[in-house]
Every structure is written in C-alpha cells, then in structure tokens.
C-alpha cells in the first residue's frame, strides 16, 4: 500500500517545532495519499495536534518541508493551507459561538453581493444544502451556534471543512464529544469522503476508532514518530505497544522515535 507509486497528496518531511526549548514535534515525517485515511495516534501531549496545526497553517515549523502533490508548499497561515485544499476540523471545533451556522461555515470566505456586502441569503442557502447532507434534521439556521447541541456544532464544523472542496481533511478527535449515533455518522462520512478521493488525517487517542476507519496508522510519542504501518500488518495490541512503550513491531516501519533498545519480553497490559 505504501509504495503503490501514486504521488502523495501531502507529505510532511522532517518536521520539527519547539516551544520554549521543548521539542513538541521532533523530526517527524508522514504522508497521505488520495482516498486514504491515515490515523495519527499517540497519548495526549505526544505532539499529534501540534503536527497537524503545522499542516493547517496555525503554527510555522522550525524545520522541515511540506509537499502537496509532490510540490513544495509554503504554508505559514491558515489561509495558505486552505488554498492548497487542506481543511481542518479542530478538536475544539473553532466555532465563533456568537455567529450563526452560515456565518461560521463561510467565516473568512464570505459570499459577497455585487455591492461588496455580505450575501447572507446566498450563504444561508448554501448552508441549508450542505447541512441537509450532513445533518438532515438541522433547522436552527438563524441562531448563534452557541445554542446548538454538541452534535449540531460538530456538523457545522464538518460542513465548513468539506464545503470548499477539500482535498485533504484533518480531523482532530472528531468524535471525542459525540454520542454513539453521532460517532457512527462521522464514521459514515469519513468512508464517503474517502470514496470521493479525499485524503484524511484522523487524529485520535482511541485506537478502536482509528482501526475501523484507517488504512494506515502513524504513532507519535514525546514528539517523535515511533513508526507507521498498514492496519493489516499490525494488531491493535502492537499499536498499543507503539503508543505506550514506543516499541515498533515487525510489521511497521520504524521512525526516529522507535525504542531501539531491545528489551527481552515486554507486554502491554493484560
């Protein structure tokens, strides 16, 4: 699967970033192909979200390069990332609570009338269309998103990411705040978007979430890449070992963060 010849949609090479001397991300390389779901796993504080925020333009890396479709991409603001078709659904959802659904979906990319004013009616019409696809029961178009339920807010955040023809979608803990039915909805959506050829980075600390949806997993620990593997080549226990101990199993390609000292027999839990 890794070496099937297609150019990666996105490739992050040797990315490093430090905050006040602490290396939050240290020499990490990951890639993503069209129609592929890559799970990015690791403990809280492993550097997943930071890595992804570099890709989405929120942070500027200290070192490393980003390639989009094989070409060097210069991403230093969220606007740059969006221009490359990289959309992000943040863990916090990043919604302006005081603004309605349409205002949030089009925030920063408003539809304007010929007179340069906000075309709220057009934006609401588009919002109704995209929400009909994501959340058919959604009716509260005129209310600030503060008044919406967790699932509804999530749909607004997802709508914002997919409306503008994303080619790369980053989902940071997309199901953390959702109930079982809504989690299933998100899973269905991921599979549907995958079919459309969109590449998806799925960030989670719950490996069950990821195993059901991802083609490959990359595991981070203490800011370093432990390793990457196709989900067929590794077991969930092995991935747990990567997350907890930084131990790279035989089925995975080790990264710089893999535990090189070979301990005799180490088991993860149970």
């Amino acid at each position, binding site marked *: 699967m890794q070496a099937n010849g297609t150019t990666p949609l996105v490739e992050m090479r040797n990315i490093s970033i430090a905050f006040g001397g602490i290396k939050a991300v240290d020499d990490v390389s990951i890639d993503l192909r069209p129609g592929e779901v890559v799970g990015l796993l690791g403990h809280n504080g492993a550097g997943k979200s930071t890595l992804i925020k570099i890709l989405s333009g*929120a942070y500027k890396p200290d070192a490393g390069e980003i390639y989009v479709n094989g070409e060097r991409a210069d991403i230093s603001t*969220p606007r740059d990332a969006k221009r490359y078709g990289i959309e992000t659904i943040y863990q*916090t959802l990043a919604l*302006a*609570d005081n603004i309605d659904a349409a205002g949030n979906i089009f*925030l920063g990319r*408003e539809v304007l009338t010929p007179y340069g004013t906000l075309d709220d*009616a*057009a934006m609401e019409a588009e919002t109704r269309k995209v929400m009909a696809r994501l959340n058919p029961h959604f009716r509260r178009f005129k209310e*600030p998103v503060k008044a919406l339920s967790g699932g509804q807010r999530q749909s607004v955040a997802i709508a914002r990411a997919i409306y503008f023809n994303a080619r790369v979608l980053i989902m940071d803990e997309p199901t953390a705040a959702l109930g079982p039915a809504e989690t299933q909805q998100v899973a269905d959506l991921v599979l549907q978007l995958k079919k459309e050829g969109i590449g998806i980075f799925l960030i989670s600390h719950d490996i069950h979430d990821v195993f059901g949806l991802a083609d490959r997993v990359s595991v981070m620990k203490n800011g370093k890449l432990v390793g990457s593997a196709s989900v067929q080549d590794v077991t969930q226990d092995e991935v747990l070992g990567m997350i907890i101990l930084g131990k790279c199993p035989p089925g995975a390609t080790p990264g710089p963060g893999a535990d090189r000292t070979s301990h005799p027999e180490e088991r993860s839990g149970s």
Partner: protein
Amino acid sequence: MNAPVATTAPPPSTASGSLLSKLEIDVRMLGMLAALAVIWIGFDLLSGGVFLTPRNLWNLSVQTASVAIMATGMVLVIVTRNIDLSVGAILGVVGMIVGVAQVQWLPAYLGLEHPLTAPLVVLLALLVGGSIGLFQGWLIAYLGIPSFIVTLGGLLVWRGAAWWVTAGQTVAPMDGRFKAFGGGVEGALGATATWIIAAVACGLIVVGLGLSRRRRLSFGFPVRPGWADAVIAIVACGAVLSAAAIANAYPLPVGTARNWAEANGIPWPEGGLFIPHGVALPVLIAVMVGLAMTFIATRRRFGRYVFAIGGNPEAAELSGINTRWALMKVFGLMGLLCGISACISTARLNAATNAAGTLDELYVIASAVIGGTSLAGGIGTIAGAMLGALVMQSLQSGMVLLGVDTPLQNIVVGAVLVLAVWVDGLYRRRIK
C-alpha cells in the same frame, strides 16, 4: 390573536409563535425603550411637564449626539474584547487642533470666515482622530500591548497633548459655518429640510423591508408574516415622522426669528413668527453615523470579522482572518468617530478648551454597556449603544431640570449603570 395566517410555516424553534417572535423584535431593545419611556414620563411628571416639551427633547437630542457617535465605535471595540479609555482625551486634543486650525492657522491663508474653513477643519479632525486611533490600534494589535494599558496611557498622553496645543489657552470663537456642527440656531436645518429628510427615511425603511423580504422569498426561506412587516414599517415610519414633528414644533427664539425675518425681508407680524428649528445637524450626523456603523457591523465582511474575533479569537485566526489588521481598523474607526464628536462638541461650545471631553470615555463605555454590549465580547448592537447614550443623557438632563446637585447626579448615573448591567445579566441567563 386573530392574526392573518403567516405566508410560510412559522419558525419551528419557538413554541407558541408569540407576537414578539413573529415581529422578530429584539426583546432587550424593547426593554430599553420601555426604560426610556419610564424615565421620560417620570421626569415629565416630576418637573411639572417641562421634560416632554419640543424644546427639551430637541436639546436632549443635541446633547446626546457627541457621546452617541463615539458609543457606536465603542461597541465594536468592546465586541472584540477590548476597551478604549482614551476617547475623551482624543476628543480633547482633536477639538483643540480643530479650534486652533480655524482660528489661527487657516485664517492666515484663507482669511476669516472663508467657506472652505469648515470642510477643511472637519477633514483635519477626521485625519488626526483616525491616525491616533490607528496608532493605538497598532500598539494593541501588532505589539500585543493590552488595550486597557494603551488607552489608559492614551488618556493621559492625549489630554496632555490637548493642553500643549495652546499651552492651556481656550480658543474662541469658532468659524461661523463650523458652528452649525454644534446644533444651535446655525445648525438647525429648518422645517422643510426636516420633512424632506423624514420622508426620504420613511421611503428607505419601506423599500429596505420590501427588498429584504423579496430576497428571502427568492431563496425560499421563511419570512415574517406580511402583517408583521407592515406593523414594523408603520411603527418605524411613525417614529421618524413624530421625531420630525417634534423638531419642527420647537420655534426659534423671538430675537433670532426677528433677525432672520429682517435679513430675509419678511415683515414682522404682530404675534411674532413661528419659525421651527427642525432637526439639528449634529443629530442628523449622529443618525447617519449610526446607520453607517450598523451597515459596517452587520453587512460588511469587516463587521462579521469583528464579531467573530469577539466570539472566539482563536477560531477567527484559524479561519484565516487577519485578526490584527481587523483590530487595528476597529481602533482607527474609534479614533475617526472621536474626530467627528470633537467637531460637534467644539462647535457646540463655540470654543476649544483642553478640558473638552473629560470623562466622556466613561459615558461612552456606559452607553455601550447599558445598550447591551457584553464586556465578555462578541455581543452588542449599534442601535442599542445609541439608545444607551440617550438613556444616560435623559437621566442627566432630567436631573439638571429638577435642580439635582451634580454629585447626586453622578451617584444616580453610576447606580443606574450597575443596575442596568445586572438586569441585562439576569435577562441573558433567563433566555439561555
């Protein structure tokens, strides 16, 4: 309620579809209007019918203009989770510069009472005010200094600068045409112009409601029932026309009227002439500023960004909004509005003093807050802030009318500010 059937399905969120929700009227705004009515009627009763006279209401409108104009900008400042404590001081320094410019600088080239003097000094006021605002905005947005500190420093700096312009000397009198900005006899537009303005306003209200309705219908969205739009149009036009009627019911003083009649070759009749004031220029300016600011806040991309920044600064940043530039512009706009208010207060006083605008920052902030602007950011309306300014000014001039001592006036205004914010908080918690 035997209302005609709505043209489309009622909004599903509200259960009963009460009268207010059909009209889509802001309940908070209605509460403020009710509070204003109580204040007005209360003062009228206490003063023995002196408060609700055309003369007093006309003066009230002129007195409110300066603070109301600045309050519209303060709404945007507070919505972005910032504060501007320097508005009174900016008004002071711009007022001094405006005064010196028309009394000393420009007459050296143009001579006294040149027709270009007034436009040039107004331009200068906008330029100086806007530049000061942009500079403070740059310190806040790009250097990351808290707005409270920058504008607290600004309060001292610009007040000091106001003194520096003339080393404390008061400059007077102002240019004849410039004085119109202060209202008074020179700034009263007269009956005909007032009626024309009122008619145009009514026309715009009706056309605006119709256009927005048609636009929503063209997308197949739910609209207000037809009767509700009609009620809104009638109430709004009624308010405009009554305001015009009140302004036109206040005649010029006898002496001024006689001078005017003589200057225009009209014989002075036995019973005197009833020459109405009409709406005052500063009030007209304030209303136009209010409309322009509402347009900016609700219809322009910039306004959307301002509210997004206030609602969630991080989300705004992640959406690709240039939040720093937006913030700098907010403060620039605030400075610009201080420039307008500086012209109005200087013209009204017919003198530039370095004390002009002292404590205005507090009245401006209080107006915005009484008008429903949340200090937590993200929430506020221009109309609310202007109404807040009117409430504050009504309290103050009502107490002056009753002969209440200045210290007690301040106590009452302060208490009302705290009370208003408390009631607003209760209301917000209840609707949540």
